[in-house]
């Protein structure tokens, strides 16, 4: 499959129809694996990295899930193409910085991507829309078991799977969910939630993982530790916490709706006004304003047909996605102008938000349990 198909078609997770998809954008699970007898990629000499790549890539391509996959060496991708894959969460930022000696294989539906010679020899990652941690865990577990029959993974009877970074040793697994929490941010409860989540050994990060800002009220919740717990236990714990966070966000929305409907309307209305009329917009501003439009759709201020175009804008207004259509790299100001233009065009068909329609029906009933 040529890169063109990946660039022009967004993956499954961007269609946003998984369970709890109003609040949970996507779920992700990744496994880190290394081959026995070779230095980790960051320490290996070039020749050794190439040996690993040569040994691993055909095995990955053979996986049934990778039939007609998109498989490419890192040096054959342009900077913008790599960045598009980062924005889609199909490769990590670290992997995008790699040149010769690394590769990535992505399945047709863009739900499974396997990076070769990232920080570890193999990084298997599955991503789907909504809250589907169990499903993607099974998918990646299957791919891992199939690879393990052909590749001898570095495994220690006590420490489990051995990884370049000691923070990943054991299961080598990081599971995460990306959640949209505008009401918790607006009602200033978000820090309490983050602290409570941190206390039980889970991490909360910004949109693009470690060390990134929380833009557009989007947060990533993931497990912090990898040693001493079974994979299924980690997944179950994360699932439970995400369900609780969903409950808290739903509560916060209900309370805002009852007590501060004007604050809600003001945020959505201002967001709409700026997005429809701006002629220059940074990606940060776009994400923050689109977040309010997304909330506006959940609150029925906009008709449901607006949902997919808005979800698409979240990704299409990212810097590399903007530039993939143009032949050259755009300067920041040019990008801001183009971004505003794309948003205006898409929002032109939206009706104005109507205060009278403000209503929110809780998708799933049930009180959230208190976070420990």
């Amino acid at each position, binding site marked *: 499959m040529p890169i063109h198909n990946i660039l022009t078609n967004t993956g499954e997770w961007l269609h946003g129809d998984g369970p709890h998809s109003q609040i949970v954008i996507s779920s992700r699970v990744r496994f880190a694996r290394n*081959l026995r007898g070779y230095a*980790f990629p960051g320490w290996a000499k070039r020749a050794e990295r190439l040996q690993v790549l040569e040994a691993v890539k055909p095995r990955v391509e053979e996986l049934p899930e990778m039939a007609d996959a998109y498989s490419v060496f890192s040096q054959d991708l342009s900077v913008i193409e790599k960045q598009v894959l980062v924005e889609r969460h199909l490769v990590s930022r670290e992997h995008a910085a790699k040149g010769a000696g690394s590769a990535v294989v992505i399945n047709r539906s863009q739900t499974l991507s396997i990076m070769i010679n990232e920080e570890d020899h193999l990084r298997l990652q599955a991503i789907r829309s909504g809250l589907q941690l169990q499903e993607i865990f099974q998918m990646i577990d299957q791919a891992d078991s199939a690879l393990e*029959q052909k590749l001898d993974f570095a495994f220690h009877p006590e420490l*489990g799977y051995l990884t370049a970074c000691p923070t990943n*040793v054991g299961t080598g697994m990081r599971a995460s969910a990306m959640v949209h929490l505008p009401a918790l941010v607006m009602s200033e409860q978000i820090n309490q939630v983050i602290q409570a989540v941190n206390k039980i050994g889970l991490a909360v990060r910004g949109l693009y993982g470690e060390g990134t800002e929380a833009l557009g009220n989007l947060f990533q919740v993931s497990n912090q*530790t990898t040693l*001493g717990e079974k994979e299924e236990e980690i997944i179950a714990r994360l699932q439970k916490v995400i369900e609780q966070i969903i409950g808290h966000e739903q509560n916060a929305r209900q309370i805002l709706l009852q007590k501060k409907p004007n604050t809600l309307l003001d945020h959505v209305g201002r967001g709409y006004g700026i997005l429809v009329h701006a002629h220059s917009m940074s990606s940060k501003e776009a994400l923050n304003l689109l977040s309010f439009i997304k909330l506006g759709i959940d609150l029925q201020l906009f008709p449901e047909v607006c949902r997919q175009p808005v979800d698409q804008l979240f990704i299409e207004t990212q810097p590399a996605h903007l530039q993939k259509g143009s032949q050259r790299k755009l300067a920041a100001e040019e990008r801001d102008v183009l971004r505003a233009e794309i948003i205006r065009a898409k929002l032109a068909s939206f009706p104005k938000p109507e205060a009278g329609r403000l209503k929110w029906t809780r998708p799933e009933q049930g009180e959230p349990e208190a976070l420990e």
Partner: protein
Amino acid sequence: MNCDVCQQTSATVFLTQIVEGKMQKVNLCEACSKEKGVTNSTGFALADVLLGLGAAQEIERGGGVQKCPACGFSHADFKKTGRLGCARCYDTFAEGLSGLLKGMHKGTVHTGKQPVRAARAFEAQIQLKTLHRELRKAVAEENYESAARLRDQIRRLEVPVPGGAAGTAGVV
């Protein structure tokens, strides 16, 4: 206490460094510390930034071995990168790592998924141990018939799994 460099202003920055396995203490005043780039965050061990303060020192508690025999990775490399060189480094630096892992994770022993190959190898090892014990017993009892049988069983089990032995390539 005055600054070790200019000997004039009183020291406010106290730096402890481990150089070539020896601890060095330096006391500096604000101006001199800036000049020497001590307060510059890039001079900070990356291991500390990535894995938490103290990680760089923790790894050295293992003492003794400075370099991994398999890949040549050293304490200093870990301090610089916060990453390890190869799978064998986990054995080489086991002592220093154990404290680090304890502070970092929920437990100290992996309880999750195992590669089937590893599980099989582990079982074979246990079986070999049992057979060796039985062999010693049979020899002690001068039961040579069963000793010969046990010896043959051990030989069969000791044939290495292709590609499975430590230090060889990870591809089957």
